[in-house]
């Protein structure tokens, strides 16, 4: 091959490679998001009022079936048979036998009839399974002044405590007469069971398994509006990361075999 032909052959290839490299680099770099165009950069005092609320969780998330199996003490197959009772999941940190005096986190205890135990041991074929349902928070509205760093610079002369209740964005109401596979831990103090990571439940319909979680492929934050006791509404944004579903669509037998193999 002559030098000219070689060059004619190599130059376009190199150009394509350079363009691809640039594309890979640029598409991978986050462009700095336009933000805070309105943010106050000066250190002026602000009146303390209830504006909008964002809420962020560091939530225990398991990825894939093997992590779900490893994280569970007990894995059961069965059906929900109805709501048993509700309770305050928020306890006094100094004495967990007592309810918290600050927050009410409603847990709903459902009766669950166990058909089969895939991991662990159970004394009874009926258990109670807790689902976190909602949360009631207290906010203090006052006319105190706080500076831009969050310091109170002028004490309040008027103070008003208001409450709002939010349904847990991860709550999915269990269906009766439907088969579920649940990945559970035991609450040693109270004897009932719960899922300590998200997701912890699979629904079996026509022998096909579907993972249960509001985080599956969700891309936006959970936006909720709460009404305060005084009638004022506030926007609450709850941010929890998404999870990938690699399980749904498999048959019950396939999932059962994978659960047994993962132990």
């Amino acid at each position, binding site marked *: 091959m002559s030098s000219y032909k070689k060059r004619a052959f190599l130059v376009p290839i*190199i150009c394509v490679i350079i363009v691809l*490299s640039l594309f890979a680099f640029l598409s*991978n770099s986050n462009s700095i998001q336009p933000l*805070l165009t309105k943010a106050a950069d000066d250190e002026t005092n602000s009146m303390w009022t209830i*504006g*909008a609320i964002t*809420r962020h969780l560091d*939530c*225990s998330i398991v990825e894939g079936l093997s992590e779900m199996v490893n994280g569970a003490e007990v894995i059961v197959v069965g059906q929900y048979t109805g709501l048993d009772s509700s309770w305050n999941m928020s306890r006094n940190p100094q004495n967990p036998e007592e309810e918290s005096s600050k927050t009410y986190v409603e847990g709903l205890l459902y009766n669950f009839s166990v058909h089969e135990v895939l991991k662990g041991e159970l004394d009874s074929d009926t258990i109670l399974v807790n689902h976190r349902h909602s949360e009631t928070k207290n906010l203090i509205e006052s006319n105190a002044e706080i500076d831009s760093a969050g310091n109170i610079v002028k004490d309040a002369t008027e103070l008003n405590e208001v409450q709002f209740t939010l349904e847990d964005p991860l709550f999915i109401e269990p269906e009766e007469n439907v088969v579920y596979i649940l990945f559970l831990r035991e609450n040693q103090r109270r004897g009932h069971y719960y899922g300590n990571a998200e997701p912890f439940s699979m629904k079996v319909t026509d022998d096909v398994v579907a993972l249960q979680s509001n985080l599956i492929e969700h891309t936006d934050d959970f936006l909720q509006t709460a009404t305060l006791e005084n009638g004022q509404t506030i926007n609450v944004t709850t941010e929890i990361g998404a999870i990938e579903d690699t399980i749904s669509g498999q048959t019950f037998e396939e999932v059962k075999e994978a659960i047994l193999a993962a132990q």
Partner: protein
Amino acid sequence: MNTQKRGLQQFFIGFLAIFCVFSIFFGATTPANAYELLGCRWPTKSIAYHIGIDCLYEPDAEAAWETAIDDWGNACSINFLYNNSSYNCLDVVYEEDSKHLGDTYSNYNTETNAYIYFVSVLNLAHDELEVGTIRRSVANHELGHAIGLADDNTPLLRAIMNQTRKRILIYKPQDDDIQGVNAIYG
């Protein structure tokens, strides 16, 4: 002379080809600058806080908050300064049966997108928080939210703001988190 020129040409082409292959490979596999921002910020880099009453009875949790405050202070230009008259609060809760390891509520001004106050808590009822390194990891994650960083669960992303991180291994702010803070506060 001709041989020297051709050698140089070949060296240059070879170098370029290797550089491009590496760029494509790392560009496609390493999520650089993956941080996500919440769109709110503090108007200042010095943010006040106080330790909540319940946390004062839990020395391990208090130590986790203090260590996390040092971690952020060492990693970037944000300083958390103790001030008992601050409404910003670092505390604990004891929520049984919960998937929540930590939680941050922030109140912000919708006109200016400036934070007004935040309350961050560690959930001591979660058995994972019995491990000191995990308490530190969760405390750092919550402080990241308090200053304006969002969660980013990009698979394999090494960031304190990744909820799927191995908390025992990633317990303080990483490069990606620091870049996020720099994007907000400069």
